[in-house]
């Protein structure tokens, strides 16, 4: 049976009604989208602050900022070997996505290292200086160079340009290690905390040792810090009253060590970030200057060979002529 107009009329009202509704809503949404347009994404900056700022490029991006931009656009968070597990966990926490194990194809997490120049062998070629992303190499052409240890991020970008292979990466002495790590303590413990709170009455600095214990046990550094971990004076009174014989102070010491390491790394990363930005500005400026010089030379070359010398001769003749005139 062919469709005819009278058959379609009952359909007309609902179709038009929904169409009108849709159009109105579309117009409103369009207006809101225009009014609330987002210019630059501050998420990138937050992600960048969590990255270790070694600027090593092991992730496949030319620095930490570009990788932060890539993460904000949806790239995987497990491509940063220098940051290792800590960085991945922080990123996962920030972005509320599951933490992945480090992608080993981008490199292995290693002990923190710094570059060291064997100064007797350095020929002063200055090739490593522009290669350093944080400007941590000091020196001038034909003079030996040295690395500022506290600024070096151990990225190994200076190794490759060195023509005489006089740069070594030496492992940095780690921060004072705890007697046992939290993982080791978790392994050996037999009795669990029963939240009896006997330790709370004992604590001379008014922290909640049992709450703090749970935070330390779960490696939750942020919670441990808010529970005043750093106020602990390690007197050991909580240890003595604990009916489960939990080595509370050992837990606190291990967590304090991780917290200190984390804070020191963060400070270092902040410094490296600043230096990297300055380095980039400097490189940009050098590039522009180089370009200008090249243009100048090209202009001179266009005037013909030895145009410069000819100009000088003409100018000299002019001077002689003007001197002769008055006499």
């Amino acid at each position, binding site marked *: 049976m062919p469709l005819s107009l009278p058959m379609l009329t009952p359909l007309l009202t609902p179709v038009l009604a929904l169409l009108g509704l849709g159009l109105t*809503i579309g117009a409103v949404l369009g207006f809101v989208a225009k009014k609330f347009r987002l210019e630059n994404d501050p998420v990138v900056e937050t992600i960048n602050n969590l990255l270790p700022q070694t600027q090593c490029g092991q992730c496949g991006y030319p620095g930490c900022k570009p990788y932060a931009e890539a993460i904000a656009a949806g790239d995987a968070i497990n491509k940063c070997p220098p940051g290792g597990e800590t960085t991945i966990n922080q990123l996962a926490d*920030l972005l509320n996505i599951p933490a992945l194990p480090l992608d080993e194809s981008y490199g292995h997490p290693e002990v923190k290292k710094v570059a060291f120049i064997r100064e007797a062998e350095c020929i002063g070629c200055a090739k490593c200086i522009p290669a350093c992303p944080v400007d941590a190499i000091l020196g001038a052409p034909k003079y030996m160079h040295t690395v500022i240890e506290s600024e070096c991020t151990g990225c190994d970008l200076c190794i490759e340009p060195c023509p005489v292979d006089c740069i070594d990466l030496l492992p940095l002495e780690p921060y004072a290690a705890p007697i046992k790590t939290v993982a080791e303590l978790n392994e050996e413990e037999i009795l669990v905390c029963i939240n009896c709170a006997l330790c709370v009455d004992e604590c001379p600095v008014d922290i909640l040792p049992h709450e703090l214990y*749970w935070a330390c046990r779960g490696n939750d550094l942020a919670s441990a810090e808010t529970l005043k971990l750093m106020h602990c004076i390690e007197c050991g009174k909580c240890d003595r009253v604990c009916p489960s014989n939990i080595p509370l102070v050992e837990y606190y010491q291990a967590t304090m060590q991780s917290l200190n390491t984390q804070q020191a790394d963060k400070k270092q990363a902040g410094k490296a970030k600043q230096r990297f930005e300055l380095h980039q500005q400097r490189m940009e400026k050098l590039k522009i200057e180089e370009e200008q010089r090249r243009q100048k030379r090209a202009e001179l070359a266009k005037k013909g060979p030895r145009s410069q010398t000819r100009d000088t001769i003409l100018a000299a003749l002019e001077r002689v002529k003007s001197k002769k005139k008055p006499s």
Partner: protein
Amino acid sequence: MTDIILILVGAILVNNFVLTQFLGLCPFMGVSGKVETAVGMSAATLFVLTLASACSYLVFQYLLLPLGLEYLKTISFIIVIAAVVSMTEIIMHKTSPLLYRILGIFLPLITSNCAVLGVALLNINQSHSFAQSVFYGFGAALGFSLVLILFSAMREKLALCDIPEPFQGAAIAMITAGLMSLAFMGFSGMV
């Protein structure tokens, strides 16, 4: 005034949408990992639910009823809700980009949150007036926020605890939610 208060108490405690009527369980499980995220989600849901129940009331009363198109209410409510959610998304992306990222897929998923459509349809079924509809939506959202934030606070603590391996993750979350639901049964018959 009393009926508004009754509607609010009823929606928040007695007929709590999550724990008594079991609506909107997806975000309840999905974004309750951290308190901050839960607060963000609650704010977004509060905004969407209140606005969507007002808009759907208006659409039903002034568009569908006069034209005799009551049977289109589900589809038009879905359109209205989707529009309100998109608007929330755009506004949130501008005002709080980090929260926008954290909520991720759960923000657009408010559209398919059955609590939102549930409120709109229940408003019609119970023939609420405009003010009653708005407060019913607001109360439903407050109830949702209350249990979501309570639940996320509990989950934050649970994350640090010694949970036997078979119960870790979603299992203990489900058990916790069940116990909370049992507790909320205590409110039944209050209004």
